């Protein structure tokens, strides 16, 4: 049923288009570089780092390589991850329009709503690939440079390596969910233009503005409505027991953004003249 109505074959084709593109691999490679650079820098200057200095967890990386992924994610969340993701989200419709392939997809006929859904799922797939790439690269490079063993959590509890790996996967999932609102915003902006770079810039600016607003105490009433508000709260996954209340609020918030911008994207795209 799903295969017929949504078009599994279109979804696969979308992933194929995305992952045959060199740009996609270049961005994943750049994402993988974050933990690699981080671990290398820490490794080369390990003795000069006092506990608590630098970003959270940074001092722990030397004691346990498994922290590399978490620390790298904290560094990547505000700017670098949104940057790569906005490239993909801004490209969804605007990229096809810019190439001119959009008109051929539509007369295939792909169905406009169907195309939107598949494009959106494609950006989620890229985000998953990105967050997992970061965590996996972090685990590998951490294991190369530093000792690896049971992890002492923020709460003081100790978890074993398999449990730690499982929590790394959870961090990747959590951050992916955190990005879903921004992805929906990107999809909408992408229906407004035929220039992918324009859409990408729009998404990036929105994420910057949202993070700035989130840091203004005067606007505290607004904070929990900002799509970036829970971006760094994946640290709660490193507590024992896992603190998942922020995850619930985050999920609801992201779903709200998906509904809102999804509806806008649908309204705009299904009534739009395709003149590119």
């Amino acid at each position: 049923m799903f295969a017929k109505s949504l078009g599994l074959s279109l979804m696969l084709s979308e992933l194929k288009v995305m992952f045959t593109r060199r740009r996609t691999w270049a961005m994943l490679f750049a994402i993988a570089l974050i933990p690699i650079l981080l671990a290398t820098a820490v490794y080369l200057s390990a003795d000069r780092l006092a506990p608590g200095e630098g970003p959270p967890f940074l001092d722990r990386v030397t004691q346990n390589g498994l922290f590399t992924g978490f620390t790298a994610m904290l560094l990547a969340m505000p700017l670098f991850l949104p940057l790569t993701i906005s490239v993909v989200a801004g490209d969804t419709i605007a990229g096809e329009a810019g190439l001119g392939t959009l008109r051929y997809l539509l007369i295939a006929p792909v169905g406009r709503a169907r195309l939107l859904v598949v494009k959106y799922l494609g950006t989620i797939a890229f985000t998953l690939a990105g967050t997992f790439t970061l965590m996996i690269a972090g685990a590998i490079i951490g294991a190369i440079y530093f000792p690896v063993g049971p992890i002492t959590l923020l709460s003081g509890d100790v978890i074993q390596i398999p449990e730690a790996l499982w929590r790394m996967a959870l961090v990747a999932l959590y951050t992916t969910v955190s990005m879903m609102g921004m992805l929906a915003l990107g999809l909408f902006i992408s229906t407004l233009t035929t220039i992918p770079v324009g859409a990408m810039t729009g998404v990036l600016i929105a994420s910057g503005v949202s993070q700035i607003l989130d840091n203004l105490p005067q606007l505290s009433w607004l904070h929990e409505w900002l799509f970036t508000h829970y971006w760094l709260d994946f640290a709660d996954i490193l507590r024992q027991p896992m603190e998942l209340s922020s995850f619930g609020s985050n999920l609801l918030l992201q779903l709200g953004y998906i509904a809102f911008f999804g509806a806008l994207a649908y309204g705009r795209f299904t009534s739009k003249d395709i003149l590119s």
Partner: protein
Amino acid sequence: MDSSSNLAIETAGLVKQFGSQRAVAGISLSVPRGSVFGFLGPNGSGKTTTIRMLLGLADVTEGEITLLGNSIPKDLDTALPKVGALVEGPAFYPYMSGRNNLFRMDAADRNSDAKTRASRVDAALDRVGLTNAASKKVHAYSLGMKQRLGLANALLKPRELLVLDEPTNGLDPQGTREVRNLIRSLASEGITIFLSSHLLSEIEQLCTHVAVMSAGSIVAQGSLAELRSHGQSRLIAKVDDVDKSVELLQAQGFAKIKISGDQLTTPADAELDVAGINQLLVKNKIGVSEIRLEHPSLEEYFVDLTGEGFEVVR
């Protein structure tokens, strides 16, 4: 059955407004099934805009479209699988091979059968002569190869109608000839072809029917023979005694005789008995070095209809 079922495309009072400009200003097209229909018009006359509306890419400002018996845009999804199209040049993912591009476009069509995809893609590539370049990335294609790939995309499935917007744009003479042959062979299979072009020669060589667009309106429409009959044929004669010839011709009812040197030109009936006129002149001792009936070229008619200037009208 009503007469409209014999039409592959029918529009009534079709209008497309861009801001204050009427890019298409109320056109009524009748494209018979099985015809090769030339959609002729200078740059900016509204050909591509019309095609975008036919295919549901752009909204109709006013008017009605019936495409293969389906009302557009309401029944677009029923009509489109039967239509192959090339709109304003081919467009592909440059970083994918020609074959993979076709796979992508075929997967986009929810009605297409994944099991036959590979064989249909190969058949389409073969049909346009791209088999050898199929695994090359499209960014390495020449313009002509892209144009062919665009045609292959239009041929991924058996179609009832092909809408081709300037299909020979950018092709060398050899490529142009091949594309024309391809169009002829598709037409001979009974596929209706709607071909837009600003090249009269192309339309003359390929089409059975023509509509001439100018600044958003259709200024002439009909079978090629009908349009040809619109212009005025002319009798042209070179004689040694101009004055006497003029007298004789006027006596035969010819008017508006133009004289330049020893040459006479006069509007004449397309079926005129030229040999008879020749005999008449010769009988009157007039030396005739040349006499012929010139039929109006479609080109003159086209220029008459659309204005001669090279400037884009708007």
